[in-house]
């Protein structure tokens, strides 16, 4: 087919450009709800990324297990001591939980805090300057739904934006256009934290007269109905009087996205009727 255009390359060039432009416009329109093209592309990328992840992960683990055994003894000791500490912590939490269960008053709060999670590995990360999304090796088959909250032990990571049977695409809270409902630990001041594509979140619409101190911790407020209440988001690193009515507040997320390897995805809240 290409030989037909050898003498008229400009025609082919313009045709390809036009097709690409049509593709772009379709997607931009679909931002209101139709994500078919992005979904299809994820469908093709996921198997490749999964295979790569499987091969690299297995090789890495084999190397660590059988080749780099030098630190195994030290590591074993460290893990044993950590395990003992964790057991104590588990007992403490168990005691606290049983106390909470006794009180019927806390039943509603329990429903907000207890949720089912699924551990998923990150199989690809967008290396582009224009996107910071990443893919995980769990999808609809594992019970993950669109807009499911994605967490890590450090705090909130993001939410699922596109989903496939074997994989899903996650949008971090730091992405431009993403937002999370937050509450400050000390003042209990609530608001919306917005991502701007950088490593910091912007806390907007907080009036200048409110006192927000640097070093305060921001937790999820649960108001967005995506992230459960009480999960750590980040630390206030900047709080200055704004030029207009609102304060200029920046929050640094606890999650280090460059070192993230596994995440927890909320499958469904325990006790929910869904």
């Amino acid at each position, binding site marked *: 087919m290409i030989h037909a255009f050898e003498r008229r390359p400009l025609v082919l*060039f313009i045709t390809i450009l036009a097709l690409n432009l049509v593709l772009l416009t379709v997607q931009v329109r679909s931002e209101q709800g139709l994500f078919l093209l992005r979904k299809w592309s994820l469908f093709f*990328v996921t198997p490749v990324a999964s295979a790569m992840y499987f091969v690299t992960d297995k090789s890495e683990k084999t190397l660590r297990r059988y080749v780099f055994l030098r630190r195994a003894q030290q590591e074993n000791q460290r893990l044993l001591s950590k395990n003992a500490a964790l057991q104590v912590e588990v007992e403490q939490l168990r005691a606290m939980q049983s106390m909470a269960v006794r009180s019927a008053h806390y039943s509603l709060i329990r429903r907000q805090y207890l949720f089912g999670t699924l551990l998923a590995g990150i199989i690809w990360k967008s290396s582009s300057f224009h996107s910071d999304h990443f893919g995980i090796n769990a999808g609809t088959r594992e019970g993950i739904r669109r807009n499911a909250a994605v967490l890590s032990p450090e705090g909130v990571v993001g939410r699922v934006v596109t989903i496939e049977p074997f994989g899903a695409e996650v949008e971090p809270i730091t992405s431009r256009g993403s937002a999370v409902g937050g509450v400050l630990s000390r003042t209990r001041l609530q608001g919306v934290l917005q991502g701007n594509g950088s490593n910091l979140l912007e806390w907007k619409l907080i009036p200048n007269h409110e006192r927000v101190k640097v070093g305060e911790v921001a937790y999820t407020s649960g108001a967005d109905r995506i992230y459960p209440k009480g999960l750590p988001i980040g630390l206030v690193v900047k709080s200055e009087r704004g030029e207009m009515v609102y304060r200029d507040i920046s929050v640094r997320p606890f999650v280090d996205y460059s070192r993230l390897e596994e995440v927890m995805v909320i499958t469904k809240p325990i006790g929910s009727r869904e």
Partner: protein
Amino acid sequence: MEVVIGKTEVLLLLVIVGGSEIGLAKYLPWLALYLDLPLVLVIYIGWYSRPAKAALCGSAFGLLADAFFRVLLGLNGVSKTTIGFVTAYLNRWVLIGGFFPRLFVISSLTLLDNLIVFCMLELLSQPVREGFGYHALIRGVVTGLAGVVIFQVYDWLKLPRREFRA
């Protein structure tokens, strides 16, 4: 010297680029951010191919890059189609035998690629991240340097050895 790049070779390169992008993003994210591997190969194919083939390959590599970078499909498709097409014509007027001419041409084409992406984002009213110009400059230098090395390796693999003995 004529270098022939066949369909199978292009398909193989597409697979290699896909695998490399995933590997780089996982193990060397800073390099993945600044190195545009699909672009280097589009320039190479464009340099040794006719405009029609160069445009077609540019589009294929661009769409693959879009799928792996998780950006709007067609964004790199447009830019890399243009780069492939331009490169195929550029080789008629420019010679890139040495290190610096190659570095200059690849870096300039990388900047042009970034400029097209920027224009497309503006045209589609999509947000452009802060520091785009700074990022594009570093990307130009890194891709240029990597491109020179990849060109050298590829030439060594593809071109027949010259025999100077009588």
